[in-house]
């Protein structure tokens, strides 16, 4: 695509932020100094929140680009755990890839990839108990994969077919897996943040050990629910983690629109009296370590932590989006924090427990496995062919017991089926 002309500049004093690079520009991030040794110290998880104020402005990193894991945040995971993490990330990526392609073939109405953000979901899930309730957005499929949800069921949900646990009621990717501590995803951005705080308050009320972990993209932090969540979490010291996945983009608008250009997303938490961490979201060890810290704080009664996961959305917003319309095609490659899978790979190789060959092998296995699962899922129907979802299910689960007026409508509907 040709370089789009820059819009005529402001002729008034009204300031409107613009991203640095637009289609046709060559992204240059050399001014971003990737912090190497500047990772802030790891305070006690029950510290006063002021001790984490600087963490909101810096960046917690463990994995160096050369593959070393360094610093006090290094969680020193076992080789098994690291290899498990690699597997989950690569399964997530393989599934995203497959589903994206199948959507392109018309098998489902829509799909959303999490490419580039797998470390956030997988690393986060690894640091929590499976019973901790996640209030996810549509880009945390890695959590389900880490928790052993049925990939076939996930795919059936996307295909809206007879194997869909949601009976076709919801658009693809809006999973609900209570058994895996994965709250029903809302299509309305932000709303679940405060619900997660309420869930956490209920855990505290019941003297249970569980915590809630709630997610938002950086774009959706502008909704009122984000404010409610921070505020109620602060007032009632709710045992929860509030995660902002800052992948730089909200459909076509860059993070400067979401929040202005003056401060980080993590810094929002400080003013509410919450602990705040900002973490390299492409560094799975850092994500793990920050989550572990916040979970300990929450579980021990220290209240909520706001974590900003600083990452990059490599793919389009969804299958309905074409990012080359509004950002340079190759921006992802210039992104200074690399790719989360590549970075773990380098680490594993440096540790001597992994090789390029094993990596390629795993990629192949994931691809095959996903293909096989997909086949068995599609056998249960897809949206472009027959979904095999019974249309009458649309009248179910509106209420616990359908009131008479709904029954009457169901009867009316029968007359349309001839």
């Amino acid at each position: 695509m040709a370089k789009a002309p820059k819009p005529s500049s402001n002729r008034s004093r009204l300031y409107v932020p613009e991203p640095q690079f637009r289609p046709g520009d060559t992204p240059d991030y050399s001014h971003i100094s990737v912090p190497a040794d500047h990772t802030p110290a790891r305070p006690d998880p029950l510290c006063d929140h002021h001790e984490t104020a600087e963490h909101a402005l810096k960046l917690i990193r463990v994995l160096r680009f050369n593959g070393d894991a360094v610093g006090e945040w290094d969680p020193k995971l076992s080789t098994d755990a690291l290899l498990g993490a690699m597997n989950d990330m690569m399964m997530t990526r393989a599934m995203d890839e497959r589903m994206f392609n199948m959507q392109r073939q018309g098998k489902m109405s829509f799909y959303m990839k999490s490419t580039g953000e797998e470390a956030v979901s997988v690393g986060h899930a690894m640091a929590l108990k499976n019973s901790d309730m996640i209030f996810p957005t549509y880009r945390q499929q890695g959590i389900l994969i880490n928790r052993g949800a049925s990939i076939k069921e996930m795919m059936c949900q996307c295909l809206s077919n007879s194997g869909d646990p949601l009976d076709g009621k919801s658009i693809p990717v809006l999973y609900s897996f209570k058994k895996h501590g994965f709250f029903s995803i809302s299509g309305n951005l932000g709303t679940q943040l405060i619900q997660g705080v309420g869930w956490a308050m209920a855990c505290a009320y019941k003297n249970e050990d569980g915590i809630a972990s709630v997610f938002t993209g950086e774009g959706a932090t502008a909704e009122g629910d984000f404010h409610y969540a921070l505020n109620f979490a602060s007032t009632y010291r709710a045992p929860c983690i509030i995660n902002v996945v800052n992948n730089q983009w909200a459909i076509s608008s860059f993070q400067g629109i979401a929040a202005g250009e003056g401060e980080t997303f993590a810094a929002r938490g400080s003013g509410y009296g919450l602990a705040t961490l900002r973490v390299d979201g492409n560094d799975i060890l850092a994500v793990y370590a920050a989550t572990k810290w916040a979970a300990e704080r929450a579980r021990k009664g220290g209240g909520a932590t706001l974590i900003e996961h600083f990452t990059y959305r490599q793919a389009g917003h969804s299958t309905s989006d074409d990012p080359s319309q509004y950002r340079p095609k190759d921006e992802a490659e210039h992104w200074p924090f690399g790719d989360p899978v590549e970075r773990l790979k380098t680490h594993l190789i440096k540790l001597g427990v992994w090789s390029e060959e094993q990596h390629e092998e795993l990629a192949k296995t994931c691809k095959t496995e996903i293909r096989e699962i997909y086949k068995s899922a599609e056998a249960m129907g897809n949206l472009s062919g027959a979904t095999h979802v019974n249309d009458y299910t649309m009248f179910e689960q509106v209420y616990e017991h359908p009131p008479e007026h709904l029954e009457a409508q169901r009867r009316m509907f029968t007359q349309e089926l001839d």
Partner: protein
Amino acid sequence: MADVKTQSMTMIEAIRDALDVTMSQNSDVLVFGEDVGYFGGVFRCTAGLQEKHGLHRCFDTPISEGGIVGIAIGMAANGLRPVAEIQFADYIYPAYDQIASEAARLRYRSNGDFVAPLTIRTPVGGGIYGGQTHSQSPEALFTHIAGLKTVIPSNPYDAKGMLIEAIEDNDPVLFLEPKRLYNGPFYGDPHAPAKSWKGHPLGEVPSGHYSVPMGKARKIAEGDDVTILTYGTMVWVAEATAAQLGLSADILDLRALLPLDLDAITESVKKTGRCVVMHEATRTSGFGAELAAQVQEHCFYHLEAPIERVTGWDTPYPHAQEWAYFPGPKRVANALRKIMDAA
């Protein structure tokens, strides 16, 4: 109910009693909202509950209606039975998204994986010179939302039984409290001496647990000339005005707007052949429109005159002109006369 002890109560006391009874029987019931804790609510509906049940079971919240309903949803999904108060229905709009998009649809969206059995209590209606922001009756904005139930009591007996029913219901329920009826019935004349519930038969409230089944209207007067469908404050205005006109009116206090007692409605209208629908809310797209639509759908061939609507005007609720806005005895009488004169 022969040996059940009863006590004379205002609607405020009946609501408080319903909360007390359910909180006592079920530790999953939590009560919260603005000023509901130590202070006991601006209308005193939660007075004493914090002292009796503890700070963690009846507490104040930030002034954040969206947040209040948001935490209620999360708590309800996590097994509790939250009862949230919105201080005035006029302030419920910041929570509209959480109610309409979230509470109402959680069960459907998750196909029953998660549910939201919460109750939202909020005072509605005018009559206290509260002006534009302390007088609204927004029920129709909720009856349009699939997945929600909307109920509104008109007396202490119903208030207690219906609130217990709402709290125990497994779906989200909006419980609207006609604030002009908190202390006594109101027949539409603001200059008449205020009546109290004390001594009124519907102010005799059984102690302990009982419930009023949701979706059953209450016939408050039996008659043949005309059917009046109404709810909340207007129940009393309708009854008094019909009586004053010497009309033989079949008056239904609907109690629940959704689920609606269509059987009771059609039975009555088929008998009388005339129907007046009354509510305090703004006319256009008010719940009266739905009632009129359904009545003509189901009773068309029995109707002898057009269904009349008696409502508030299509303006915000004014302050000084409160009684010119309120659908009082004159507006009710004009409609009743008109429908009786028709055809």
